[in-house]
């Protein structure tokens, strides 16, 4: 049970406080409700580039990192298709520095031309390093547009191409900031060795004066229902063939999310899981294989991805995967098997509660999805999943016409 206090400032900023006395540190996590799904299709990668620019100095503070490092703090950030999340940790006595820094960059950025120019280059190098200079690195750049035809999940957070990043101008950066960054479009979570009263005082002091901003309602196109199998063949200089199968699933807040998550666990969580045992250990068809969900807020994807063992054909490999998927979609899992994956979920929840920073991020995500207290009630939702739920969810997911397959060929 994670206890927390919650309050909202007049400008709409939601604040959550969780006390964990076992650490001498405090974490501040600021989640903005803006992700790459909110981008203009001609300006993809913008939300992520913008995240870099948030470190380029704010209206009253020329350098973000230095004052934080001076008080023993550290920070980072990440961007997903759904959100942009900034977090930092400081020794508990220096919590106010965090409020000072975070509130100033919510108030306004410095919008420096130099920072934009440098970070454009940095992001382009990131693009190369992570997507082009790694074996199998470009998979998602191709798999997303195969699975999504209308919905903005069709592009990765890094963007569709380097070209779209190269030409970003400063006035677009300004416009983006005032359109999406606002107290009423963010959630602040403070966790660790902190007192609610003190957090309240600091929040009022530093964030209170920032004015509420007009945030346009999100209006994303629905992804049309897929009606036939889609396939794509790529050939790259990699040592082994690989297969990527993507199935459309529901959104994060659907009841069915929990049974879908457990389906992926039955298939591939842990070494006793079905596809690990059957396809790697027994039949030696894959050197690695995995089934998992993207966990996106909007309707997401259920993935089955594997690297083929030397000498195994795509036909054989794919047929073996379908065999396992058909089995879970037509035959009931046993009581024992369901109990096992539920035990694993419960255990991983207990382990995830060790880190105060982790708890801060999870509280923020749940609050944005509807209610921070879900962090405590989720386990009950997993417990309630029945054998029939697993069967029905699997039957709905694992249909050819709901599937996109990327065949990644090794160039010999």
């Amino acid at each position, binding site marked *: 049970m994670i206890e927390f206090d919650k309050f909202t400032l007049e400008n709409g900023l939601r604040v959550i406080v969780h006390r964990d006395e076992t650490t001498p540190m405090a974490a501040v996590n600021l989640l903005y409700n803006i992700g790459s799904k909110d981008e203009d299709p001609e300006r993809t990668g913008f939300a992520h580039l913008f995240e870099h620019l948030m470190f380029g100095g704010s209206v009253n503070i020329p350098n973000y990192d230095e004052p934080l*490092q001076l*008080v*023993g703090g550290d920070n980072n950030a990440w961007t997903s298709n759904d959100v942009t999340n900034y977090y930092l940790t400081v020794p508990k006595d220096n919590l106010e520095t965090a409020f000072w820094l975070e509130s100033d960059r919510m108030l306004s950025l410095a919008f420096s031309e130099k920072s934009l120019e440098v970070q454009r280059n*940095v992001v382009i*190098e990131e693009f190369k*390093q992570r997507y082009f200079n790694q074996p199998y690195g470009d998979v998602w750049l191709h798999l997303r547009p195969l699975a999504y035809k209308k919905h903005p999940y069709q592009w990765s957070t890094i963007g569709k191409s380097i070209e779209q990043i190269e030409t970003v101008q400063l006035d677009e950066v300004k416009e983006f900031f005032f359109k999406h960054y606002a107290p009423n479009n963010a959630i602040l979570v403070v966790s660790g060795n902190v007192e609610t009263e003190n957090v309240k005082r600091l929040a009022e002091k530093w964030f209170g004066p920032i004015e509420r901003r007009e945030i346009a309602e999100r209006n994303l196109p629905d992804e049309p229902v897929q009606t036939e199998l889609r396939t794509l063949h790529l050939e790259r200089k990699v040592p082994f063939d690989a297969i990527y199968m993507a199935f459309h699933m529901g959104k994060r807040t659907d009841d069915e999310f929990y049974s879908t998550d457990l389906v992926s666990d039955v298939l591939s969580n842990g070494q006793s899981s079905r596809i690990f045992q059957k396809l790697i250990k027994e039949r030696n068809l894959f050197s690695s294989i995995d089934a998992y969900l993207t966990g996106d807020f909007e309707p997401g994807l259920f993935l089955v991805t594997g690297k083929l063992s030397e000498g195994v054909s795509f036909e054989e490999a794919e047929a073996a995967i379908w065999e396992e998927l058909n089995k879970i979609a037509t035959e009931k899992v046993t009581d024992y098997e369901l109990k*096992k994956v539920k035990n694993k979920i419960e255990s991983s929840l207990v382990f995830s509660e060790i880190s105060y920073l982790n708890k801060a991020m999870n509280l923020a995500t749940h609050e944005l999805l509807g209610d921070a207290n879900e962090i405590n009630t989720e386990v009950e939702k997993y417990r309630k999943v029945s054998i029939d739920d697993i069967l029905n969810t699997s039957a709905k997911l694992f249909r050819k016409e709901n599937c996109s397959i990327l065949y990644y060929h090794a160039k010999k």
Partner: protein
Amino acid sequence: MEKLYRNTAPEYKTVDSIEILGDKKYTLSNDIPVHVINGGSQEVLKIEFIFDAGIWYQNSPLVASMANSMLNEGTSKYNAAEIAEKFDFYGAYIGFSAAKHDSSVCLYTLNKYLTETLKITENLIKDSIFPQKEFETILLNKKQRFQIEHQKTNVLAKDEFSSLIYGKNHPYSNIFDESEFDELDINTVKEFYKTHYIPDNCKIIIAGKVDQSVIDKLEKLFGKNAWPKKDNLMDAKHEIQLSEETKSFVCKDDAVQACIRIGRPIFNKTHKDYTTLHLFNLILGGYFGSRLMQNIREDKGYTYGINSIIISHLKGGHFVIVTEVGSDVCKAAIDEIYKEIKRLREELVSDEELNLVKNYISGEMLRNLDSPFALSESLKGNLPFGLDNSYYQNFIQELKTVDAEKIKTLANTYFQEEDLKLVVCGPDNCRSSI
């Protein structure tokens, strides 16, 4: 309403000392040392069994790592699938790792299932049988991973750099050819297991919610239960061979970036100048505010990231700067790296910068040593050097005595340009950068 001064930083406190949750020591009746770090709010345990069974002790490549991995693959009581089934059912996680000197088996479990999960752990540590079929599967999959890894410029650069500073055949390099996977004999691996995974060669670190019953269970399963001792264990000898070459280029034609490594062998953490080296490293490339990161990423935009690190091995160590840059700016990046090192040789670090890194490092220690699990990791790293976690308290005190002069002296003693090895791995047009 309080008056706001947004352009003035709030007051702050420096971390003068850190409280570290110490470890309590026990000894099992067969002399296995047990270190206990008791704390945390969750009912969970991390129990790590550490053996002197790392790469250092093997006679041919892959032996230590395969012996370690095969512990999960079958005992005379359970086959691999049954072992996996049991750990998964209790929501436990078992991890295996083979490092330079030690190899370990690490159990993460909920306290309430300790009896069951510890029993299986006992079984696989003492009674593994190395089935042929599982051996072949694990080896083949390791080989595929090896082949994929060796497509990466950073892996190729790392191998080349290690061979320059330790020599191709030294365990700290751990470089070997793909063909070794086809030549490995299961009996060599099995023999390694039998001679190295023994009580005389073992220590245990437990972290989490530990009470007497946990110690009692350990004693029962690992102290008293039959577990053959061997007393003729031999230490291995390996000579470091520093190459005379100072520069090397590894060509990877399809790469879109160049990976750069610049560094040298250096003393380990038992040396009297280690704290100074730590500060030198931090200032140069050890954190986001470092000179290299600020210059090469934040000013020039040549890279997504650049870091320098110090690796302390038991019998050696090295310092290295690592980055991946656009191939068109490879030469420029290398020049800037040398320029930053030269500045540390020639100019004193300002009080302001020194103060900042000292504060940063104290905060980092506070952050990294705040949970029993994290403390057990640090303890594992310290024990081979004859140290425990009180090492960090001394470190913080010693930090205060390091001044700009000391850092400059260290830079001049160890970081002359001719002391440094340079490796570049990238497309052919980067060849002229070195």
